[in-house]
């Protein structure tokens, strides 16, 4: 196995772990952390592609994804805190006002 495919497989596995985490967890904080795992997996792939191509454009895109992740975390945590601050348990299945 080459070093490139090792990193590639790691990235894919991290994406799958994050997706499974979003589905299996009911705590909004844990779900957001799983989303962060998926973002990190995509970032790893971008940096690997930049290295393989010998071109820094992928690294620049990874930097922009970092900023996006920060904005996403701020909004997601704000909503989670506003919804679950006064509740006994932080469980996304419980609030009745969240209907989709």
């Amino acid at each position, binding site marked *: 196995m080459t070093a490139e495919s090792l990193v590639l497989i790691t990235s894919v596995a991290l994406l799958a772990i994050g997706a499974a985490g979003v589905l299996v967890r009911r705590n909004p904080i844990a779900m957001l952390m799983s989303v962060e795992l998926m973002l990190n997996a995509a970032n790893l792939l971008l940096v690997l592609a930049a290295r393989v191509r010998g071109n*820094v454009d992928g690294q620049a895109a990874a930097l922009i994804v970092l900023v996006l992740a920060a*904005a996403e975390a701020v909004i997601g945590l704000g909503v989670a805190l506003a919804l679950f601050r006064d509740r006994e348990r932080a469980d996304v299945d419980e609030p009745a006002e969240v209907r989709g």
Partner: protein
Amino acid sequence: MNELFLPLAVGCAVALVSGLLVVLARRPVHAVVALLGHTLSLAALYLILGADMVAMGQVLIYSGAIVVLFLFVVALLPQGGSEGPPGMGRALGAIVAGAALLGAIAAWLTVGPALPPTAATAGGGVVELGRSLFRQLLVPFELTAPLLLVAIVGAVSIWRRQERMP
């Protein structure tokens, strides 16, 4: 690039184990600590792959800002945000979905085009990165500024409305 195999393998192993711990930890505080280890291991991977600037951004933004934000929210939630146990169907669905995603991507990787040969050297340093950010990626880069502003205003307004309601 194969002389880097061993450090990359160590970094990948740490990233995978800590990623699994993030999903499997029952207590949110443990998951946050695992997320901290995960972000640091990815920063190490970026360093090995020659992306110094991204590694620094990862440590500053992820390990420094986002993980601390998660810690604050866990501390502010009652009981640190405990949750009910995942139902049998939910766990089964997550496993099936994760395995299907993994299988689909693995199938594409084997059928799809192979990786191009790796360049002899990593792309240039900060100067070249800045050139890329301000030429090809100028519009998305500039759009991150209003995005962050909207995120800040949105977070504050969500909180303010909550304050008035109780």
